[in-house]
């Protein structure tokens, strides 16, 4: 697979992309300090702040989730690499407030470690924060063994509801509880149909043989599931949904959201087919598709495939899901 990317010097890739990102979404976000992405209009300091960190190369994630009703700060790292603790600490200092910081960390070793160091240092400075770890990738291991489960695109719904709660002025405890409730009720499963390349090194991220697909692929092409023949949209939807519903123990009568996150070259066209099938399958099980979200939110360069994230919604979470927000990836009036 020859790399065909329109880039400049790989050494400046992240700096340049952040500059362009801030330019493209200047009404919603801006850059500050050591390339921290912050809201264009800062949230009132008496409200809980939301901060996250993570590698770049997954655009629009994670910085695209910054904005009113969502994140206050994202700390973007290098391509697929967590930012180091100093910049994370810088973000925590910037967000420091009496109301506290909800610190959302996706479960990947680098992110977790960087966050841990930064939090330890922040604690010494009297910065009040609560960490919420997202680890909803069911391909990592059995539910309960949380450490094995990576954080995939499910961070988006978590950020949406917790961000809405913070915007409403709820306490740190309340925001953390909401984030954790959302997180605990969800699971994500990925399918990959074609590979991608690392934009700096040209290294192949996942090679998927012709006519095959891989269920359970991680965010950087890590293996984790079975290679199997490429299926129809309907059959793929069914395989994935069945596994996810079993994982979250979904029961008839429940309300769920479904997010379909295209990871790169898979078209919206395909995702719409999958969503349609998901809805029908849920109906036959007596489950309501209460909310849905289809698009490219957390990508893996030009990889083909998508992540299906399914989660439980109660009345409060639904209201928070529907609450106003304004970020590059999600605007609710």
């Amino acid at each position, binding site marked *: 697979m020859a790399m065909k990317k329109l880039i400049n010097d790989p050494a400046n890739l992240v700096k340049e992309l952040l500059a362009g990102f801030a330019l493209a979404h200047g009404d919603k976000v801006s850059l500050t300090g050591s390339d921290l992405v912050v809201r264009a209009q800062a949230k009132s300091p008496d409200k809980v702040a939301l901060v996250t960190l993570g590698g770049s190369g997954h655009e629009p994630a994670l910085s695209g989730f910054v904005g009113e009703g969502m994140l206050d700060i994202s700390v973007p790292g290098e391509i697929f690499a967590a930012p180091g603790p100093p910049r994370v600490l810088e973000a925590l200092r910037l967000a420091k407030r009496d109301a506290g910081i909800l610190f959302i960390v996706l479960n990947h070793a*680098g992110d977790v470690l960087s966050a841990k160091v930064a939090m330890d240092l922040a604690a010494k400075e009297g910065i009040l924060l609560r960490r919420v770890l997202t680890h909803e990738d069911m391909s990592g291991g059995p539910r309960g063994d949380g450490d094995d489960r990576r954080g995939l695109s499910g961070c988006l719904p978590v950020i949406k509801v917790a961000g809405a709660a913070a915007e409403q002025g709820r306490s740190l405890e309340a925001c953390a509880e909401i984030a954790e409730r959302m997180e605990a009720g969800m699971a994500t499963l990925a399918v990959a149909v074609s590979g991608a390349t690392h934009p700096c090194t040209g290294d192949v991220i996942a090679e998927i043989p012709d006519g095959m697909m891989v269920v359970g692929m*991680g965010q950087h092409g890590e293996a984790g599931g079975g290679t199997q023949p490429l299926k129809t949209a309907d059959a793929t939807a069914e395989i994935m949904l069945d596994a996810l519903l079993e994982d979250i123990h979904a029961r008839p009568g429940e309300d769920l959201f479904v997010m379909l996150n295209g990871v790169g070259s898979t078209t919206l066209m395909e995702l719409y087919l999958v969503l349609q099938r998901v809805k029908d399958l849920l109906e036959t099980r007596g489950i309501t598709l209460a909310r849905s979200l289809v698009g490219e939110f957390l990508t893996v360069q030009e990889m083909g495939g998508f992540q299906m994230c399914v989660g439980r919604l109660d009345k409060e979470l639904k209201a928070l899901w529907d609450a106003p927000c304004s970020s590059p990836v999600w605007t609710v009036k």
Partner: protein
Amino acid sequence: MQFPGLDGEIVMGAITHGLLARMLRGAAAEVRENHEWLSRLDSVGGDGDHGTTMVRAMSRMEQALEADVSGKIPALLNDVGWAILGVDGGAIGPLLGMFFVSMAEGAEGLEALDVGDLAAAFEAGLAGVRAQTKAQPGDKTLVDALVPAVEALRAAAESGKEILEALHLAAEAAEAGAELTSTLQARFGRARNIKEQSIGTRDPGATSIALLFRGFEKGVEPHA
């Protein structure tokens, strides 16, 4: 013992600021020479960037060495640690960075380190790493090289070994620990996702630790 030709900075049996700088430069050289191997190891169960990230960490370390005007061991170690923390580099950055930052705390107030001081500083560094991760020996991480290396240094200090000899024994122990990781299944880091398939390859992080200790030794060795 007095090493000849080392700018007169050597105090018998003790690591001065200048010698520490040599140790660190030796480590950087050793990693740089082997970075492709490190990335290859990481590409089995990880994302193949470990060598690149280590080189970036070493470059940052060298910048800190360059910039250092304190002449103090704790200050130098702390600067090196923060420089490495500043690398956007996944798992290894925070762990290695905290290793040096914590070493600095372990060497607080000291102008030079005798073998016992050095062992204590490395122990503080190890503790700093272990505070960040639940990984235990046997979990196929850099802990598997770091623990035996630090233990060997402590044992050498207890038995009155000289610094060069002590660093040699630590390097041997680190290498043995790193080599042993090839028989283990990864329980931390990205490689845990490939489960049994991680058996058969050395852990990249542990391998880096072995290279660092080998470099420490080479850095203080008398020039041939």
